[in-house]
């Protein structure tokens, strides 16, 4: 293994994650003991992993502290004289919410004006072509939205990047432009389900070396979108 191979294959990361075994691990170790760059990187990675584990352990210990005990004044609310009218009022409120407020609220959520939980699908830069046989699935309600997160491998020759969403028909239903600075971190795209259809959609990543130059495909990430209640086309 040459150093360039180790970098391209992210061998140090694979080793830290315990993903290398057998002949691949032996091959990397033969290189590791002879390459100061990889051995320095591995040492740093291991120190990082150890400290991360330590920090997360402490954070978990802090979070597991028992919640504060119920205060004395709250016990008074449980007396029957107060409890029955409270329950009746709660029931009226529940009926109102179920048949009036909630449908309206759902419509507001659909128009994305309020925070909501959304399905999140992440792609890494390594999956340049994506294996169609191994599609991730995203399920969303008809007026909902979902999140696509992607790491775009930055190349010095590109002055700009473009992300496009291709519907199952192949039509480009959305695209957005990104600068080199923006792709240094993972990109998150919120997609309203209403702009596309159920089926195999594709997030296409392209690079451009100059404003008027043709774009070059960098990666193509297919995923299976299921919009509840909608037929797959």
């Amino acid at each position, binding site marked *: 293994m040459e150093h360039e191979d180790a970098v391209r294959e992210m061998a140090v990361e694979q080793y*830290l994650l315990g993903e290398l075994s057998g002949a691949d691990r032996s091959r990397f170790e033969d290189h590791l003991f002879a390459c100061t760059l990889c051995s320095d990187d591995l040492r740093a990675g291991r120190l990082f992993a150890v400290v991360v584990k330590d920090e997360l352990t402490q954070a978990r210990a802090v979070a597991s502290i028992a919640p504060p005990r119920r205060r004395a004044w709250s016990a008074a609310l449980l007396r029957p004289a107060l409890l029955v009218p409270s329950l009746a009022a709660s029931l009226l409120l529940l009926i109102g919410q179920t048949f009036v407020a909630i449908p309206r609220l759902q419509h507001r959520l659909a128009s994305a004006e309020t925070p909501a939980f959304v399905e*999140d699908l992440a792609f890494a830069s*390594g999956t340049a072509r994506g294996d169609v046989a191994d599609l991730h699935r995203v399920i969303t309600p008809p007026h909902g939205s979902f999140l696509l997160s992607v790491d775009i491998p930055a190349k010095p020759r590109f002055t700009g990047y473009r992300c496009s969403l291709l519907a199952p028909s192949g039509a480009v239903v959305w695209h957005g432009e990104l600068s080199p600075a923006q792709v240094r971190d993972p990109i998150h795209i919120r997609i309203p389900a209403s702009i596309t259809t159920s089926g195999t959609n594709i997030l296409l990543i392209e690079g451009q070396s100059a404003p008027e130059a043709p774009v070059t495909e960098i990666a193509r990430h297919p995923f299976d979108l299921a919009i509840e209640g909608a037929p797959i086309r």
Partner: protein
Amino acid sequence: MKFVAFDAAYVTALCSGDQATEQHFQVYFSELIRLKLRSRFINWSEIEDIEQETFLRALKLVCREGALRQAERLGALVNSICNHVLSEHYRARGREEELEEEKAVVLADARPGALDHLLTAETKNLVRDILDDLSDRNRKILSAIFLEDLDKDAICAQMKVDRAYLRVLLHRAKRTFRQKYDRQLSAEPARTELTHGSRGRS
């Protein structure tokens, strides 16, 4: 600890008993040997035995006249000797596994006390800042990998990412850590350096 290169001068100094070179040799390869052995589920007491035997044989072989024709192959020689010692260890314990068949583990545990000198408050703060800058999802992924030690395929299925995502996440976090850690180190007082000029007979 920095050094120039594993060259003929280094090997000569090592074999002549130069303490600084010997110390560097042990410190440099000790961690690599331990990581190699720890990735194979070997417990710490056995790791120490294998490591000591590896160093004994490596020094004996390296310093035998004509044994090491190319000084830059020193690292590969140490690895090769470690492989032999490890094979003997397996045979002595009646284990059937070949070197290549052993499953690998995530390298996130440290022998108690081994990294104490590196786990300074500054380093912990640095890592805490890096964790704080991550998204919730990425923090959960790192927790699943390094704290909970979950199966990677299970993590990918649950978090809807692929294996490459895990590697890229670790790569970026490690890169940020190295940049900040190196800046932190360069701000500290200079440490002892092993260079050609500082070698000499003890």
